[in-house]
């Protein structure tokens, strides 16, 4: 009797703990109010829904080694994770997940995001900011004869065939992203037409012919039609090597229009930046009447000191603000030593982009380039459908199981159904307790594991029937039924659990959700079949004192 009391107490405690674990509670989390994310308290059941059920975005970022091998991948990816996490926190997502996979991947999950393209850009942008002084020494002009010579030796893109081809194949693969497919092809066509009708101007070679002097030292204009060709030349390794030492060539981010002609700018700058974005400790978007959209930034003390002394040395020089290898706006002239504040001019770009740029500057630059390997966005409506369908399938499945149990085993079947209720509550509570995420495969795994949980009951009840057939007393039959079924139940549960554990270990995303639900289900099923149903039988035996016939 005391044994029975302890058993009952344990069951009641487990059920209460499970109900407590599943009780709706007040949590503080980011929620969307009128299109903005704010922190607020919400009342909800502590079972998180996965991306497939509530909609959102899944990104897998991979270390991009196409522009140079990264030596310490482990370290690089860890630092990248920090930056990505900072950015996402600033971006404002309900409950983001950022985790590493292996030593070269980052998985980002953004529930509730409805602008995938923007999220992609924010996560992936390198945000490498540099302040560089434009060249005052006419270094490029002096090197041009050599560059022209190299360009002639290599041959231009037109002599290799259509430029459109090169934009698709390797040499300029890093640059063609700037163009849509269409404008790339158009540029190619016009270049071809140009070279066919008017040969390269006599004053210049293949490169110098493309360049026109700009207004400030180190600045060049290139007409829009010639941009693709110039980009091709400047991406050639031979040309890169021939650029005067200590100097670098950077493209401007925007086009400008002078007298109806559209130009891109090219800047020659000192390759050593006077300061980089690492020193930024705050950045805010702003809208100014003169410069349009800008991002105002503030440097930390150390950076401010360096910035002041460097700018003091370069008064009357021009300072290019280079973001991810593109010069932002037109380099301003340095009037006097600049302290800790400055701004980046974004020209025609809208406020949203200024916001995003400020965000990535605050969060810091990515230590290594990342490339998106895998991207999924799931609409919220898809998730609602899936939940409704999953729930109705689950309800029907449970109804069928209950019907079969009660019709076939009568009273004992009812005890088994009680055991199944215990099983369901504890399984869900375990999932909530482990912070597991309820995904579609998870629900499927749960529905399925109900079927498998019943298996344990069938094993036991069939054994009890066999023992009753052998003419044993009810009490002995129940005891022997449980003890004989024990080995089969343990072995089946352990083999399935081993498979589930390996699934968890090697699987990703949805497969993991399935494995977790299965593991929780198996644990609950063992306790339910062996302990709970047995206790119910003992309770029944205790009440009837072993005199009543067993309905099984």
């Amino acid at each position, binding site marked *: 009797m005391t044994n029975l009391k302890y058993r009952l107490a344990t069951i009641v405690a487990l059920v209460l703990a499970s109900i407590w674990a599943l009780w709706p509670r007040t949590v503080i989390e980011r929620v969307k109010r009128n299109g903005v994310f704010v922190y607020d308290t919400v009342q909800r059941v502590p079972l998180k829904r996965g991306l497939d059920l509530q909609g959102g975005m899944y990104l897998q970022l991979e270390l991009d080694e196409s522009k140079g091998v990264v030596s310490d991948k482990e370290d690089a990816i860890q630092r990248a994770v920090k930056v990505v996490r900072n950015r996402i926190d600033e971006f404002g997502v309900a409950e983001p997940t950022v985790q590493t996979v292996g030593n070269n991947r980052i998985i980002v999950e953004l529930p509730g995001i409805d602008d995938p393209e923007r999220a992609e850009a924010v996560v992936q942008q390198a945000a490498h900011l540099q302040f560089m002084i434009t060249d005052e020494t006419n270094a490029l002009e002096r090197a041009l004869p050599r560059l022209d010579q190299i360009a002639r030796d290599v041959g231009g893109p037109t002599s290799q065939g259509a430029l459109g081809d090169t934009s698709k194949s390797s040499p300029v693969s890093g640059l063609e992203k700037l163009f849509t497919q269409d404008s790339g092809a158009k540029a190619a066509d016009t270049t071809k037409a140009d070279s066919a009708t008017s040969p390269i101007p006599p004053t210049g070679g293949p490169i110098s012919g493309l360049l026109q002097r700009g207004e400030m030292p180190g600045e060049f204009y290139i007409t829009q039609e010639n941009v693709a060709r110039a980009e091709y030349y400047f991406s050639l390794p031979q040309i890169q090597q021939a650029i005067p030492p200590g100097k670098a060539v950077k493209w401007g981010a925007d086009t400008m229009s002078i007298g109806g002609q559209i130009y891109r700018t090219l800047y020659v700058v000192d390759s050593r930046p006077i300061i980089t974005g690492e020193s930024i400790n705050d950045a805010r978007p702003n809208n100014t009447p003169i410069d349009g959209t800008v991002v105002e930034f503030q440097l930390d003390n150390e950076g401010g000191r360096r910035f002041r002394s460097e700018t003091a040395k370069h008064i009357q020089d021009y300072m290019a603000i280079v973001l991810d290898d593109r010069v932002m706006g037109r380099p301003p002239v340095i009037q006097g030593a600049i302290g800790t504040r400055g701004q980046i001019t974004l020209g025609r770009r809208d406020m949203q982009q200024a916001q995003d740029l400020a965000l990535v500057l605050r969060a810091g630059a990515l230590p290594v380039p990342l490339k998106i390997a895998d991207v*999924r966005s799931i609409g919220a409506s898809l998730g609602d459908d899936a939940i409704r369908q999953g729930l109705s399938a689950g309800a029907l499945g449970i109804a*069928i199981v209950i019907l079969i149990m009660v019709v076939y085993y009568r009273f004992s079947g009812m005890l088994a159904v009680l055991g199944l209720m215990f099983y369901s509550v504890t399984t869900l509570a375990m999932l909530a307790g482990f912070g597991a995420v309820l995904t579609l*495969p998870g629900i499927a795994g749960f529905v*399925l594991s109900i079927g498998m949980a019943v298996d344990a009951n069938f094993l036991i009840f*069939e054994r009890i029937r*066999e023992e009753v057939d052998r003419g044993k007393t009810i009490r002995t039959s129940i005891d022997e039924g449980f003890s004989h079924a024990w080995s089969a139940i343990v072995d089946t549960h352990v083999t399935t659990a081993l498979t589930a554990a390996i699934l968890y270990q090697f699987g990703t995303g949805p497969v993991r959700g399935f494995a977790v639900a299965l593991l929780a289900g198996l644990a609950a099923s063992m306790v339910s079949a062996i302990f709970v149903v047995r206790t119910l039988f003992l309770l029944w035996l205790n009440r009837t004192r072993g005199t009543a016939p067993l309905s099984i």
Partner: protein
Amino acid sequence: MLRILHNTKIDFIRLWKQAAIVIVVFLIPAVVMIAMSGFNWSIEFTGGTRIQLQFQNAAEVSAVRSELANAGFPNAEIATFGSPNELMIRVQDPTAIAQQDRAAGAVVTAIRAALDRRFGEGSYTVVGAEAVSAKVGDELSGQAAIAVLIAFGITLIYLAWRFEWRFALATILATMHDIVATLAFMKYLNLEISLFVVGGILTVIGYSMNDKVVVFDRVRENLKKGRKLPLYDLLNQSVNETLPRTVMTGSTTLACLLALLIFGGDVIRPFAWVLTFGIIIGTFSSIYVASPILLWIERKYPRMAVDKAHISASQARAESQVEAAPRPIRGSKAPATGRR
């Protein structure tokens, strides 16, 4: 007391040769088909792009197809999904995958641009979009294969420890057969092998092992009773004794799966198909694959000389079609020490 299949004495194992023929007839065409055209892998494994769109009006599949062909995706697969308003577009050919390798969302953007041009912006919404690079896909299929092999290895060790190596080996071989049969079934239905379906196949493995363990657990118990019954008869007896449980569990699980098939929706349906077939084949193979394999192993590597004699005797009996059903142990006065 409602009882089904109670106290049966069916000589199941006698039919193993016929069963083997059925298996071979089922598997051979599928193996040939798989060898010729491979599997219908989802983009998760090959890389590629999948977009689910919801149009405001019934979607014109042919118009979408021609527009996508213009946009450079002549091999895009387009199908309605769920309702006639919803479309699933799948782009999986190598050139598109290569395009994706440079920028993951490129194909999605291009398709949306093409559809915007044709149908106007806002005439449809993107319900879901996925773009997977080929490299991620390769790794994934590698991982799945490794996971299955490790699961087999660990189960083999566990069962060898709990039972003995003969039982473990028979279980694993029979389960492998179930995987091959399930893959053949998927080939016949031309089901797409997605990550979710792979999860289903792994569940089939778990269920199939579960079923074999239950039967072998009975064999182990009957062996412990120390009665000098040939293994052939012992297996038959064990299969018969566990038959009510096998049928009940099988039908309950199938009922749950039926619910998933009917109400689970298009996302769950392939998964439910795999499990439905897998559970039937898993139950079947416990009797007709695992048991004959165990008998074969036993004959090659007998436990004891005395067993060998029994087995050959029983084989001879089975082949000469003599009534081979053993007397059930029901009501026997077996010593209590023989059981646990």
